């Protein structure tokens, strides 16, 4: 009987005596690679209850239990390190980027609110928001510096805002600079995601758009997992709270998770959203599978999806009358 082990191959007789052994050298790296190569092996596995340590000592691979464990430790450690370093795949990089983007968005919003609140005391009439406000502050600082060509000149001149002292002005200007650089970072990450999605999941990107596609991969955990999900799961990814409420109690099932942000879904009239979401999810699932298993771009997918959605719309031009009343009543009661 042949037995594969991490330290070599053994030939044993029926009672388990070792007849012959082909041992590997005590090179940690080679042993680790050998160990990894045995992961998928379905033949020559050690039989149930086989004592590897005793066999290693008997066959002369290790002189003592201490040496056996020392080598085993080094080899498992090396093998695990090799596996971990190959675990950062392109879809994992997209996931990191999506999560970074969410963090940047959250931070930007908080900082922007602060900036707008802060500067509002000095120039409440500006009417600027977001990036424009940050740009304005970085450019002028105090409203007294607004040039006469600027469309906001007269507003700035007549503003009821307080006077901005030099120390405050320096501080607020730098702060606005930081907010602005976060806006730039956001665009940079979005460009990165768009670019990576084209390479990693072109079909998914084509149907879902880069951001929704990346978010789906992120919530699924990897492109592989997303490809393995049934489309009904993809339909409700991101609505887990509603889904579990539905499974546990008598709440209605969610019609859509994050795919709500898909333009076909969120522009559909309310009585079609569930149907459209189902159609979109089914094509997203196909797209993820093509991307993971073949990688070739299939432009017909989006056409089929649009045709399907059109069909849904023509078949159900009006909202269902009776059901709506019942549905509304039920919803009200359940919400309590």
């Amino acid at each position, binding site marked *: 009987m042949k037995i594969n082990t991490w330290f070599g191959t053994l030939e044993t007789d029926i009672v388990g005596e070792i007849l012959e052994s082909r041992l590997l050298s005590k090179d940690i790296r080679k042993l680790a690679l050998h160990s990894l190569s045995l992961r998928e092996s379905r033949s020559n596995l050690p039989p149930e209850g086989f*004592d590897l*340590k005793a066999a290693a000592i008997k066959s002369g691979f290790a002189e003592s239990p201490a040496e056996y464990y020392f080598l*085993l*430790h080094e080899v498992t450690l090396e093998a*695990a*390190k090799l596996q*971990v370093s190959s675990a950062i795949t392109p879809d994992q990089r997209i996931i990191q980027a999506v999560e970074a983007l969410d963090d940047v968005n959250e931070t930007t919003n908080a900082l922007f609110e602060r900036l707008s609140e802060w500067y509002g005391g000095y120039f409440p009439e500006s009417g600027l928001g977001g990036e424009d406000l940050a740009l304005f502050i970085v450019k002028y600082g105090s409203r007294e510096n607004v040039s006469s060509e600027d469309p906001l000149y007269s507003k700035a001149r007549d503003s009821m805002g307080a006077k901005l002292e030099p120390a405050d002005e320096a501080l607020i200007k730098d702060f606005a600079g930081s907010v602005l650089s976060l806006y730039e970072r956001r665009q940079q990450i979005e460009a990165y995601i768009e670019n990576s999605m084209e390479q990693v999941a072109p079909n998914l990107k084509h149907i879902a758009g880069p951001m929704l596609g990346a978010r789906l991969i992120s919530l699924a955990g990897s492109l592989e997992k997303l490809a393995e999900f049934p489309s009904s799961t993809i339909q409700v990814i991101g609505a887990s709270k509603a889904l*579990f409420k539905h499974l546990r109690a008598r709440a209605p099932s969610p019609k859509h998770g994050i795919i709500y942000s898909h333009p076909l879904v969120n522009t559909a009239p309310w009585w079609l959203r569930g149907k459209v979401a189902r159609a979109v999810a089914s094509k997203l699932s196909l797209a993820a599978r093509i991307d993971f298993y073949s990688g070739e771009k299939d432009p017909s997918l989006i056409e089929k999806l649009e045709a399907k959605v059109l069909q849904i719309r023509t078949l159900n031009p009006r909202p269902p009358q009776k059901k709506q009343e019942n549905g509304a009543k039920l919803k009200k009661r359940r919400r309590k």
Partner: protein
Amino acid sequence: MPEVKKLSDGIFEVIKDKKQLATKNLDPGKAVYGEKLIPVQETEYRTWDPRRSKLGAMVLKKFNISLKENSKVLYLGAASGTTVSHVSDIVSEGAVYAVEFAPRSMRDLIRLASRRKNIHPILADAGKPDSYSHLVEPVDLIFQDVAQPNQAEIAARNAIRFLKRDGYLLLSIKARSIDTAANPKEVFKAEVKKLEQAFEPGFEILNAKDLKPYHEDHLGVLAKLR
């Protein structure tokens, strides 16, 4: 001077201000996950928070985990190594085969294992014991904390392959990972039955207790092969 009471081999109760579960630190001076280090004379103890470790909770729930200094342990679902570090303390002369599937957790586990010579990290799916059968010797204890819907099956496959005839299986069953909607008590009943009957030779259940108040909806099970 803190008072030390031995609960079983390698597991202690250190009384400093309050009673705390602890193990002897195999890697003195170093805390693994922010736990307290309490020196008593020549020995350093690491406190073991039962709320962060199902095994710790089982010890306090009086499960007889019967580990010795030189025991061999197969730990399925090692995660970042919080509990593994304590098992490593207990079996200071033995071996811990720490199986974990997530590369992210393995990163932390590798850091831990590189400082503790008795931890052998294995990045693999605990549901496929064939994929690490070339590495693991017969063990005295299988501890499993995998939170998978088929955890009874995983335990059975590993026990048949790696558990010594007189070895034990310690299992933490998370009701919510088997069926989110069902009543935890029903889930526990069904899982225990699966362990007893779903495979040959089946497990004999020696102890089964809810891990409240340390963990919600978790059942601890001690079993051995029939």
